[in-house]
């Protein structure tokens, strides 16, 4: 493999703006959406429609549905979502750090070790608080 191909495998003109690399992604996106639209549209057109009120009611194991699904649900799902956002941001910091790590050397290692120590303190705190325990009843607080 020659070096030029490794640097710029799409072989665009040298001065071309980098955003051109994303144009095929846009094309793929449009095609994928068209595929989804065509599939849904085709089955809507080809399938027959013979509806009754019973048939259009939501599935509930064969019994008459009891109300709708707009109920409250366990708060643990919210907790997981919040904890995910916190730790996903941490993962987002790790990726660019990993890319430039060789240039940073021990300095980069020390910085990330301190950062991870702070993050892990929070992680241990929510662990002790029982956010990850799904089989214990929630504590009244």
């Amino acid at each position, binding site marked *: *493999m020659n070096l030029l*191909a*490794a640097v710029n*495998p*799409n*072989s*665009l*003109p*040298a001065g071309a703006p980098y955003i*051109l*690399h*994303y*144009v*095929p*992604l846009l*094309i*793929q996106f449009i*095609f*994928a*959406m068209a*595929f989804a639209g065509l*599939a*849904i549209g*085709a*089955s*809507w057109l080809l*399938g027959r*429609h013979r*509806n009754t009120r019973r048939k*259009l*009611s939501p*599935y*509930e*194991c064969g019994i008459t549905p009891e109300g709708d*699904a707009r*109920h409250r*649900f366990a708060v643990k*799902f919210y907790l*997981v*979502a919040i904890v*995910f956002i916190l*730790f*996903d941001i941490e*993962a987002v910091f*790790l*990726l660019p750090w*990993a*890319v*430039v*790590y*060789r240039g940073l050397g*021990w300095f*980069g*290692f020390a910085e990330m*070790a301190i950062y991870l120590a702070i993050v892990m303190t929070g*992680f241990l705190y929510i662990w002790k608080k029982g*956010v*990850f325990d*799904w*089989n214990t009843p929630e504590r009244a607080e």
Partner: protein
Amino acid sequence: MQMPLKIYLLIALIKTVLSLAVMASLIAYVQLAERRIVARMQSRVGPTRVGPWGLLQPLADTFKLLLKEDITPSQTSSGLYLLAPAISVTLALLSIAVIPFGPVIHIFGYTTPLQITNINVGLLFILGVTSLGVYGIVLAGWSSNSKYSLLGSLRAGSQMVSYELALGLALVGPVLLAGSLDLRKIVAAQAGGHWFILPEIVAFLIYLTAAFAETNRIPFDLPEAEGELGAGYHTEYSAMKFALFFFSEYANMITVSCVATLVFLGGWAGPVFGPVWLSRIVLPLFWFCLKAAFFLFLFIWVRGTLPRFRYDQLMALGWKVLVPVALANVLITSLVVAWR
């Protein structure tokens, strides 16, 4: 030779159409392979009637699903209900665009990679698009306005975000070794047989576990646990809308298999010989497909082998085991890289 913009766009268009056609037929046949292999594992034969060895079964299934009645239950939020399968399948097909299948080739005097487009943050793009995939599933469950769908989508949502964290953290190790998010450079860093599966075996195992959870496959298929939830988030979906969820699940399986091949198994590396067309195009593609097919077989094999987890076990495994171990792996890898 430098490429004019028109030719560049034309090649992109051709590659897009080709890759969509290949993906669609691949998904159909992975499904058939799964049915046949799981059947063998359970001492059955599986579908054999349509065409020789049942090879036309996917075609028959497609037509059957196209002709089925398309039901929109009366309680649904109809706009979102329609949009959810479209979101799922669009995102599933989008992430395949940055996956390189083989080396850069020279054809008709032009140079082009065996990939729809090569961007320098390919791995990050895949992670981003995969994490958007949770929207399709959560919207499907919520807009169906059915209890089983809602419970299934809640489970799917928190399962996918939990394991996505482990997935992202597991990939930091190989990125540290390669020093790039460009999938081609990650493959190039493994040249000469230095596959990242050996130094990063812990990251590989975490990635594999998280990949099963991300694609909602057994043993992590709680979102569609048929014993308790009907069919989970797609309970209320029928005809092609149901098929699109199926389609996107298999497309996601193919994507995570390809990423595992690229990041841990050296991509298209393997013994090559013979003339240029054989050693630069056919054999690399063969090795890539072989490695990806191994992962796809693993998905099927595990489905035929393991029972389903309980939800508290799933959450405990994700947060109490995979995330801390993945972080420890990042620290140890960075220590070793700094040492050298």
